[in-house]
């Protein structure tokens, strides 16, 4: 198991404390392509943040790749994020004043990898994404699909155990959504574990497994076998 969550609870403190996750139990195996679906306010973003070690949880246990994620120092959390997790965000989250290759290379910078090697590895990832000719463009000069592929290249560069994607197609039109999903499927075919948080059934339909979350709890028995399905629903936010 790459991810094991055992009775994970999370409450946001406040005048009216908000119990967001009410005992999540979840196991994700190596090589899975999982969609986490839920309405807004269901707790799926909180779950993603916890999975990404971007946020803490209150009780329960979360084990990532054999490491118990609990009360980590900022440095240790940063190190685990860097080595184990590749993030892909809805709004790409590229650094605007750095070109594509620099953006892709950035995680390696924080590993202390030398510049030359960093940029060489980054170029390889960009080539893999078919963006070699865009390597020296700034994010502002790229289309949405290209930006997301740069972001995916960045998430891959540290050769992580897991890719966490938060609404990766949310800002893309239907055609580029399909392209990006195809990238994820190809990566998964190569053995990469990918967790995609989405509210788009069309995206979820392309995943091997869908986990539905509602009101802070996982809705049981929703494993569907949609892999290879050709009935892709067009996102209506295009």
């Amino acid at each position, binding site marked *: 198991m790459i991810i094991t969550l055992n009775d994970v609870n999370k409450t946001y403190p406040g005048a009216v404390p908000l119990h967001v996750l009410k005992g999540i139990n979840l196991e994700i195996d190596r090589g899975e392509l999982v969609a986490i679906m839920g309405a807004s306010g269901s707790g799926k973003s909180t779950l993603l*943040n916890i999975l*990404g070690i*971007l*946020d803490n949880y209150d009780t329960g246990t979360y084990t990532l790749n054999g490491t118990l994620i609990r009360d980590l120092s*900022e*440095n240790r959390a*940063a*190190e685990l*994020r*860097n*080595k184990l997790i590749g*993030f892909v*965000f809805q*709004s790409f*989250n*590229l*650094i*605007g*004043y750095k070109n594509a290759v*620099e953006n892709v290379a*950035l*995680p390696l*910078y*924080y*590993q*202390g990898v*030398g*510049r030359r090697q960093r940029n060489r590895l980054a170029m390889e990832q960009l080539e893999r994404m078919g963006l070699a000719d865009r390597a020296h463009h700034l994010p502002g000069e790229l289309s949405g699909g290209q930006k997301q592929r740069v972001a995916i290249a*960045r998430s891959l560069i*540290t050769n992580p155990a897991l890719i966490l994607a938060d609404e990766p197609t949310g800002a893309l039109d239907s055609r580029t959504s399909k392209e990006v999903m195809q990238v994820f499927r190809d990566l998964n075919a190569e053995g990469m574990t990918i967790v995609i948080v989405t509210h788009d059934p069309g995206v979820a339909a392309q995943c091997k497994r869908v986990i539905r979350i509602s009101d802070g709890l996982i809705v049981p028995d929703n494993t569907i076998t949609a892999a290879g399905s050709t009935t892709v629903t067009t996102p209506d936010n295009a």
Partner: protein
Amino acid sequence: MALQTSLFDIDNWREIGATLARNKTRTFLTAFGIFWGTMMLSLLWGGSNGLEGLLMRNFAGLDTNMAGLFTSRTSKPYKGFNKARRWNLDQNDLDNIRSNVEDVDKATGVYQSWGQMSFGDKSSNGQIIGIEPDYLRMNSVILKSGRLINESDLAGSRKVAVIGDKVADQIFPGIEYSDVAGRDISLRGVYYKIVGVAKQIGEASVAGRIDDSALIPLSTMRQVESGSGNRIDVILVSPKPGVKVKELLPRIRRQVYPIHSIHPADEEALDCFDLSEIFEMVSNMFLGLTLLSIFVGFGSLMAGIIGVGNIMWIIVRERTHEIGIRRAIGARPSSIIIQILSESMVLTTIAGVAGIVFSTIVLHIIDMATAEPGLPACGFTLTFSNAMIVLATFMILGTAAGVLPAIKAMRIKPIEAINDK
């Protein structure tokens, strides 16, 4: 590892450059604050040194630990004498002070008279000062040509004179100083042989400006001015090193008063013009001025530093989202802190060094403009050690200015930062 990476990785320097270059106007204005602060501090510091030098060089050539003793009317009746009696110092007192007062290093008598100096049809009015050779040790001069008054002139009561350069210019116009020595001059109708031409070093002198005077041996003066007896106008006294003139005065009074029948407690009859006191006053004044300059200068620099802190704060706010991205992809808090601190340090260092360089140039120009041949330089310079202090100050404070913003940046949770749009 993180530090090494950031120090030697060209990307880090590029990134600093890119961040600072992104908002050129703002960076320039912030840098200007530091530049101005550093420049003010350096200019004021070096400037106050220079002003002190400018004033102090007026005293160049003068023994600073020296006092001139002079007499006034007595202020107390004593031994049948009424008060307000006139009296004079004389050769006997001088000998007495020299041999009987403890801690006197040098003592020399001066007798002055005003009169006409002439040769041929050229003449000039000025002081004719009877001196002993010690006088020129306490009040050094620049010898333009010839020699000074020496012991054998004094012993032989020779009719020799050292004349001031202005006197030489007036009475022997167009003649080289070296040719002036050896000529004759009439001082109040008596002919003397000129043995030297001299010029005062600074602006200040104890007994008349040497440039406009003629110096003759005191013994010769006595013979010529036969009416004066053994009278001495002023006795210059310099104490041994470490002793103050003030300590000598009561001892001198004890030696002099009984002979002239003056009340031992008379504070007015014999007083002194204490050069060391004036020196101390001037020194203190300039110490005050220097402290004020440093205070004001550091204030300006602080204002600049606070400006940097302010801008770093804004930069952190502006880049919260970016910092969040970096944190998400694995930047440690320390990497973020180093990044922010290096930006603030680079900005202050470049601007600060520019400030030091600029003020050094300005001070050098002032120093050259105030330079006068024969006089020591005023010292309108920021000394190397002071420059280092200024450098260390803005380096440390400039880095410190980044600390609060950097801590703020570190406190940003990656998830909050990512959502900060």
